[in-house]
């Protein structure tokens, strides 16, 4: 009886998710070019925040190198397209693999340290990459930006919207599958208590390395897609500005929750379009809001919503 009810409930939930996704998929047809662009950028940040959440939210490793891995994906794909004439789609795949490879290297180097040392090392890695990109003008075109071909033969925002929608769905599916697998149990065990986890047979270093590599690969894919969409890759993609924007989105939306980063990405990206006039100060404001959220509502908007719903309908809690 109760099992039947829960199946009905989960069917209804799946139906609602499906209907929501379908409604979202037709949305760009009703919008102008500018709003279509905003949606595409929202989907890019969804990929970034969801993949950062995989390491920060589910295994408790605060990496500041996520934007750098997106940059690796973008530049590897872009440079291969420009210098080697490679098909941009092959480039996106290569960029993803390159980001995974560098993720693995950085991971091997510093995951044994954990905690603040991981944060500092990834921060350093991010800055080194930024400096290299700025200075290797012959290859990267420095701050001028590297002009790269698009992913489609004829440019249309609608087709990019669908490309990014598929990218976001792939990213979210991978995160969901991982978190709900046996590996996901290990992720959360490591985040809760490393010593207890290892006493129960969890290979802590390998678990963190897996999360870090997958997360970096997903960031690389997002960055590569974004570069080809903008058709201009600048050092802004692997910048700390981007890093802290992604961090703010995840923390404000809900660190360690599945939908939190999606909500954070959409809210903050749409909001930052409205406060564009403030220039770069909006990242500062988001950072401050993220700090306040982290202190007073560590589960973000999702946590606030759940607490509110729990109060309203205590019998379902």
């Amino acid at each position, binding site marked *: 009886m109760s099992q039947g009810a829960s199946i009905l409930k989960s069917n209804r939930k799946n139906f609602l998710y499906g209907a929501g996704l379908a409604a979202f998929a037709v949305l760009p047809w009703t919008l102008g070019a500018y709003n279509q662009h905003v949606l595409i950028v929202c989907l890019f940040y969804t990929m970034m925040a969801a993949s950062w959440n995989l390491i920060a939210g589910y295994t408790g490793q605060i990496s500041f190198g996520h934007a750098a891995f997106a940059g690796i994906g973008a530049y590897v794909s872009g440079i291969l397209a420009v210098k080697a004439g490679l098909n941009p789609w092959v480039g996106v795949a290569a960029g993803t693999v390159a980001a995974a490879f560098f993720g693995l290297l950085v991971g091997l180097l510093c995951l044994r340290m954990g905690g603040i040392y991981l944060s500092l090392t990834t921060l350093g890695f991010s800055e080194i990459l930024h400096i290299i990109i700025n200075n290797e003008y012959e290859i990267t075109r420095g701050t001028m930006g590297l002009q790269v071909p698009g992913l489609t033969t004829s440019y249309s925002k609608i087709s990019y919207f669908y490309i990014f929608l598929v990218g976001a769905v792939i990213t979210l599916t991978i995160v969901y599958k991982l978190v709900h697998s046996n590996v996901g149990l290990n992720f959360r065990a490591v985040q809760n208590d490393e010593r*207890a986890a*290892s006493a129960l047979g969890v290979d802590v270093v390998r678990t963190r390395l897996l999360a870090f590599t997958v997360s970096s690969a997903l960031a690389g894919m997002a960055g590569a897609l974004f570069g080809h969409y903008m058709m201009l890759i600048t050092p802004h993609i692997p910048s700390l500005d981007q890093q802290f924007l992604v961090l703010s989105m995840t923390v404000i939306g809900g660190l360690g929750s599945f939908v939190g980063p999606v909500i954070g990405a959409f809210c903050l990206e749409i909001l930052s379009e409205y406060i564009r006039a403030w220039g770069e100060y909006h990242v500062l404001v988001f950072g401050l809001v993220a700090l306040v959220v982290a202190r007073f509502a560590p589960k973000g908007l999702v946590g606030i919503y759940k607490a509110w719903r729990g109060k309203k309908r205590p019998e379902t809690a």
Partner: protein
Amino acid sequence: MAREDDLKLVQGVGITKTFGGVQALSDVDFEVEKGTIVGLIGPNGAGKTTLFNIVAGAIAPSSGVVRFQGEDITGWSAYKVCRRGIARTFQVTRPFGEMTCLENVAVGVVNRQPGCRRSQWTVLAAECLEAVGLKDLAATEARHLNVVQKKKLEIARALATRPELLMLDEVLGGLNSQEIQEAVAFIQGLRDQRRLTILWIEHVMGAIMQATEKVIVLDQGKILTTGTPTEVVNDPRVIHAYLGD
């Protein structure tokens, strides 16, 4: 000769550990025979938990050798020691607070049986919770448990790793005498029904007297004596170590 070695499930030879200038353990030899319950006692700071941590791979000894079923496991990582068949509880409990009790136990299940499906680990983890009497709290997040329940959860998680050797670190703390009786019967049941070997740190002497076949006494990082519970409590050196002059 080989058969005699088979009887020793765990053996420590010359285990020494220094932290900075502090000699926590010096030249400790011990063995635990298969199928027995062995008590490890001693005053506070004697080095009992340090010895546990060394056997469990949480820390490496400065020198000395730990053997499990004749295999040298000295300096192995904790997760490898666990997968080899040694489980331990923590004196200060370390539950995964944000996870449910069932998920806490499931971590132990899935790492000993890789590829185990959710439907399988749900059943196996529920069995372990039932064994310690926490079945009704399966869906409760571990941070909501009280101290005694957290200790039970420690044991359930350890059992989930299907150990041959179970190391218990002061699991009776906070229990009243009635509960201690039940806990002693439960621990003896683990040995008799699950064919476990148990190495047990405990301050509750009554429980040690009742449940163990052998007692190892540590004092100031050295083995003071080893013997049956009755021998040990009547040993003047043990009384001296506990009570002073």
